[in-house]
């Protein structure tokens, strides 16, 4: 089998950093090639070099594609040759229809006049290929993330794709949608389309990949061939982190005390559709030193529950009782929730968690400015000490606390968010997808921080779509489906099968 793509000796430097150092990668025609590595290992940079976002001349090394050396000046050059990249943050226009999005910049037009019937019929064909059963006229904003992902792929297909690059395509998909997507990749493979798959989900990679290239600190570590022998997840992790990861979840001896936090009959309705009840009579308790998980599929209402609890940040007609240490607390505004000892680290760090243009220091103290100020005047030396303290304690990797958070990797951003909430000194910490999009090494560090919190006698409520993570971290797991808690499992009896079983059973009712 010959290679469709060979990137040789790619080196790319940014002021002060060598992002890529002599990277080599060879993708054979008609294979699924996985690209793995911790955050900041250089995966995205490498793909930007390939697609021409960083034009020829801004890096050294050579790109040989379909047997010829290529010098892309921009993304349109690479697209013309069938190299299509689908970014993690989807690049669709929400208020345009599926058909309009698919042919955006590539309209089915003659002399600038769009032939809508051609566009619609082509769209229908493409949607059939990717298995998306929607009308071409549907607005993208009305689709879920999984379906939007499929629209992106259909868009790639419309451009005669030969090499499809997917950056974390399943990061925000539930298991069913992820499977569908992976099967689609397998089907493309049979049609001779090669793909490069960037993912943190190693189980998916071992499921579909033909070969795996591991990047670490901007260099190629190794390329593993999965056809010769099955590659275990542990084997991949060893390459990524440069050591064997004995256990993906740090050990903890739970010291669980009395119930400190109780939610009774919590209900919330959809913010626009008044009659849709999104959270239905949720009852939940957390004990001192306990890590409690909420499992469930995407759209089960977990985030909606947490946000409606945290200062009514979601929904309307919210009702229910919250007690902390046996006393009812007022959580009707975020400020009141925070001051009564509840913290909520959001699912989406960039949109809801951080002020990206500001530095680590200012983000850490944002939720508790009173803690570093005297009668409205900020004591900047004290603030700096606090920020430095958290930077050291949480191992936030940055030149200093004056680093703008926009320049941090996902794991470090999450550590800043956690620092912010720890500094507000909560009794109950709600963590919504705390490790989404974070590499293995940083995940372990985040888990360690969570364990320490529990050991310090706090209550932790952890929402996660990754079941192994919940099973590895929690002492007790609630299962949520369609807005209700449908099961409560002690960790001793919990398993992925039991959780799925509970969800399926409640769905059938």
């Amino acid at each position: 089998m010959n290679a469709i793509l060979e990137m040789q000796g790619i080196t790319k430097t940014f002021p002060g950093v060598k992002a890529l150092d002599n990277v080599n990668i060879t993708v054979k025609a008609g294979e699924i090639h996985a690209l793995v590595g911790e955050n900041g290992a250089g995966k995205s940079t490498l793909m930007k070099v390939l697609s021409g976002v960083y034009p020829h001349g801004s890096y050294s090394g050579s790109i040989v594609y379909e047997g010829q050396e290529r010098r892309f000046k921009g993304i349109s050059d690479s697209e013309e040759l069938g190299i299509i990249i689908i970014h993690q943050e989807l690049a669709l226009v929400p208020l345009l229809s599926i058909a309009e999005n698919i042919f955006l910049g590539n309209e089915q037009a003659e002399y600038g006049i769009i032939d809508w019937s051609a566009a619609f019929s082509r769209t229908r064909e493409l949607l059939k290929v990717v298995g998306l059963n929607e009308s071409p006229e549907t607005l993208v904003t009305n689709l879920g993330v999984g379906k939007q992902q499929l629209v992106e792929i259909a868009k790639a297909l419309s451009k005669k794709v030969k090499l499809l690059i997917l950056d974390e395509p399943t990061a925000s998909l539930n298991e069913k949608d992820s499977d569908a997507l992976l099967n689609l990749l397998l089907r493309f493979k049979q049609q001779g389309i090669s793909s490069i798959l960037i993912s943190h989900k190693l189980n998916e990679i071992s499921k579909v990949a033909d070969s795996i290239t591991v990047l670490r600190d901007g260099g190629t570590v190794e390329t593993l061939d999965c056809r010769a022998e099955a590659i275990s997840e542990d084997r991949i992790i060893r390459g990524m982190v440069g050591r064997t990861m004995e256990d993906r979840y740090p050990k903890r001896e739970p010291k669980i005390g009395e119930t400190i936090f109780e939610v009774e009959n919590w209900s919330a309705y959809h913010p626009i559709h008044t009659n849709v009840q999104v959270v239905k009579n949720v009852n939940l308790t957390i004990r001192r030193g306990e890590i409690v998980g909420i499992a469930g599929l995407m759209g089960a209402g977990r985030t909606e529950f947490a946000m409606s609890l945290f200062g009514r940040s979601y929904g309307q007609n919210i009702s229910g009782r919250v007690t902390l240490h046996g006393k009812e607390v007022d959580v009707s505004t975020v400020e009141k929730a925070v001051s009564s000892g509840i913290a909520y680290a959001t699912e989406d760090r960039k949109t809801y968690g951080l002020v990206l243009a500001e530095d680590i220091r200012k983000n850490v103290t944002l939720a508790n400015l009173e803690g570093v100020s005297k009668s409205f005047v900020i004591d900047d030396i004290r603030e700096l000490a606090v920020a430095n303290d958290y930077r050291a304690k949480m191992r936030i990797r940055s030149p200093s606390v004056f680093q703008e958070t926009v320049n941090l990797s996902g794991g470090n951003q999450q550590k800043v968010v956690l620092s912010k909430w720890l500094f507000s000194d909560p009794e109950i910490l709600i963590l919504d997808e705390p490790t989404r999009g974070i590499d293995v090494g940083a995940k372990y560090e985040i888990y360690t921080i969570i364990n320490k919190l529990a050991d310090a006698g706090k209550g932790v409520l952890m929402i996660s779509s990754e079941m192994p993570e919940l099973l590895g971290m929690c002492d007790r797991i609630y299962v949520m489906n369609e807005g209700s808690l449908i099961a409560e499992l002690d960790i001793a009896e919990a398993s992925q099968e039991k959780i799925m079983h509970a969800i399926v059973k409640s769905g059938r009712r």
Partner: protein
Amino acid sequence: MDTRTADELQVSQQKTSWMEFVKTHFRDYGMLLSLLVIMLFFQVVTNGTLLRPLNLTNLVLQNSYIVIMALGMLLVIVAGHIDLSVGSIVGFVGGLAAMMMVRWGIDPVTTTIACLIVGGLIGAAQGYWVAYFKVPSFIVTLAGMLVFKGLTLALLGGMSVGPFPVVFQRLSSGFIPDVFGGEGFNYTALFLGAASVAVIIYFSFRSRANQLKHAVETAPFGLFAFKNALLAVLVVAFCYLMATYRGLPNVLVIMAVLIALYAFVTNRTTIGRRIYALGGNEKAAKLSGIKTERLTFLTFVNMGVLAGLAGLIFAARLNTATPKAGLGFELDVIAAVFIGGASATGGVGKVTGAVIGAFVMGVMNNGMSILGIGIDYQQVIKGLVLLAAVSLDVYNRKK
């Protein structure tokens, strides 16, 4: 708490070289440098007229109201909004003051207080829609601009109203009297200048000492000393020039106090920090327990009060209220803030930048008028300077 991080802090305290520091902080100094270059340019082409004491006094008086409004506009823009109505508020409040004092015989002090309150109420009325109803500020204040322009006309009946009592005129045309009784030279002006230099240097040394003690990255000492010396020389030279004329205008003192106050509020207070967070990421700010609506509301109230003050100063300067007062001021104010490096998307901007931006516009207005360039080409040149300044800033940020 500090002991553990001491080692880590050492790392960041490596000696920063001059060039490197200037390079990384170019944006901070670039604006000031451009202002000085522009001033130097006009000083040369006007054969030294620009920095004559009389003209310097005029420059301050002409720009005071723009500078004062730029302080409020900075907060509005940092919070992620815009206020197009300030020019109309200047006209309306000026007109109201004129009616109160000239027609209704109310004393200047009561009038001043009432007018500031009215300014605040106008800001509140607009801020209410922006903050709590989420109507885009562009639209709300565009409406406000029309409404108050119309109300000014109605209030004054289309006529100019004046003149004002002498006490009120002093707001703009008065000077700080010389307590030392100098003949032809105002020693108080020089004394106040020297005193403020002393205060500034004291505080910057104290903060530097504090920073060094806590191992914060600081400017190299040479640069620090140079910066302070330059500032001292500029302030003293300025005050010396003013002293040879009539001393420090009252307005200058008001302006200086307000600049210092707003610089402090934006840099060091919780409310200032929260406004930046609100403009940087409203959702994150809200989920961090910040009352974003109230904060937005307050920035508009603040803007209204400052626009009211500017209206009083402008009316006092002309000694008459005209229906056309304040026309187009909003454009100068907004331009000043953007020339000063604020971001149109919110979250970024500095008080010093806005003040420098206002003076860039002011010096250009003044210099071009001395040169006899018509109002037509003045506007063309000002527009191009705004575009150039902001493009340069965007380019620098990308680098």
